[in-house]
């Protein structure tokens, strides 16, 4: 498979993740969208590391440390949400693009 084709696959994955982030109303699909986005980044990094000699070392270190930090953050969030799921549900607050009237005009109903 050519480099361009792998790159386009990464872009398609990114678009899927973007759609997921924009429409997900629950934490679970949001996390899945984040995973898909991370997969797109991973594909790009592996793709470019196969073909570009300069900066290969940095790409490998970035793959390990960057993704480790990213998954640590997600684990922390998932743990917090799981620990508090009995108190409140997660649907409304997760939504990336909220069109509730109170977020644009007037006072928030608490």
């Amino acid at each position, binding site marked *: 498979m050519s480099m361009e084709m792998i790159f386009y696959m990464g872009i398609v994955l990114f678009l899927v993740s973007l759609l997921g982030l924009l429409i997900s109303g629950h934490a679970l699909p949001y996390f899945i969208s984040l995973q898909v986005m991370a997969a797109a980044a991973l594909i790009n990094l592996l793709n470019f590391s196969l073909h570009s000699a300069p900066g290969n070392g940095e790409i490998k270190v970035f793959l390990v440390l*960057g993704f480790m930090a990213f998954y640590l953050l997600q684990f922390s969030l998932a743990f917090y949400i799981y620990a508090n799921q009995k108190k409140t549900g997660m649907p409304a607050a997760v*939504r990336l693009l909220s069109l509730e009237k109170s977020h644009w005009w007037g006072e928030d109903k608490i």
Partner: protein
Amino acid sequence: MVLLSGIMAGPFAGIIILAAGILIAFFAGFSQSRRINIIIASVTAASYAAAIYINIRNYLSAGTAATYLTNTGLAETIISAALLFCGLNVLFFLALDKLSRRDFVRQVIILSFAVVSMLWLVISDNIVLFTVSLIVSILSIFNFLASSGKDQSGVSEYAGGFGLRPAAAAGFVLLGFSLLAGTGTMGSISSIPALEKTGDPLFMMAALFLGCAVYLFFFLYPFQGLLLGLSARTDVFSNQVVWMLYIPAGIVMLIRLETFFDIFYGRQNIYGFVFLALLAFLNLLGPGLALVRSFNIKRIFTLFLLFQLGTLLLVKAAGFTGRGPSYTAGIFDLWVLFIIITVFLPLSMFSRVLETSGGMIDRSRGFLRSRPYAGSCFVIILIWWLASNIYLCFLNGPLPGALLMEQGAEAAVLYAGCAAALALMAANIIRILVILFARPLENLPPSAASLPLVFYIYISFFALAAAAAAVLVFTGNAGTGQDSIQIWGSSFYIFGSGN
């Protein structure tokens, strides 16, 4: 001893001092004694102050120093000092609220971790270090926010959502840098300017993704709902954490990434201009419109903050008018950070006081009338905020008078939108002041008889600082140029020519 003095002269001196403070706090992690809590708070505050001193001393003695991972110059020294000052204030508010609590020391440790990771973010020049320190900063700030907030209805939901938003921003950062790998340069951020000349499309896409990351990170319109929901539901301290740790971390991220956005400045691109101008007006006019019927004081101040962040987009839109790379956006970002610190720290103290009467301005009628000194400080700080924005946006910011003559219609559109947004914000501020000055309603309980001395000292300090800065600017003794800050006739080129 030689080793220690060598370490203390290096770029990590401030971080090491803070780490020593954390190490000491570890030993008292499960303390239930108020006395121990006071000692730990004092040691941590001293470590923050010492870190500010050491960073400044190292810059004065060694000047700009660059290593494989880090870059420490005047800009990094100033930003580090600003972040440590923010951390010091958050520590102060934490001590005010929770000094007697059993988990006080643990929260101090989490706060110090957040500040340390933000300091890494400031000095990082390597892309790997930048990404890791950014994600760890988000993680630490979220942990601090989640552990310090009150356990009340809706908070957990919104706090969880609050953490998920910057996680998406981190995803965009990973994606942006993964594309940068395709250009063959994954090393230092400061090596990017050489790359821009190639006009690599992968680099342009990486810049676009990083821009999306910054936009999402700041909760800018139309993604503002969660921040507004969180601000109204959580206590004042959680809001202070957002205002004084999370937003400054975002501004640091933006300053570090300005290298990527520089490629767009100076190119006359009508599509880019229209897109960014629309986003800028949405973020300048949106908070103004939302404020018209807002009464919750925390929501009001959060909308002020969103307006302030909207001005960051204004400078980006101005860059598309083909003005040339003479204006360094980093200076503007730094001014915005300075304004946020000088305005939102005292406002957060006011929100604490107003929270005692329910946190709604219509229930705090008569506040300015019954407390003339505090009210005067409140008015000074709000006027300073408005005046500093007028100064930055019209007199010597991205839209100075000469720009209108040079660029014609595009600059006129920016002028008109910016003027409308500032006029709307001024009208909202007058509305808030009128409500707070009005006679209290008879059916409402009287407010607390006296305010603590620390409140008066705190607001006096910031009101005096604001008044002094205003006097210096209006007398021509201080100001900002296109790529420098002038103080008493001396120009300081903070970002050099690289940003």
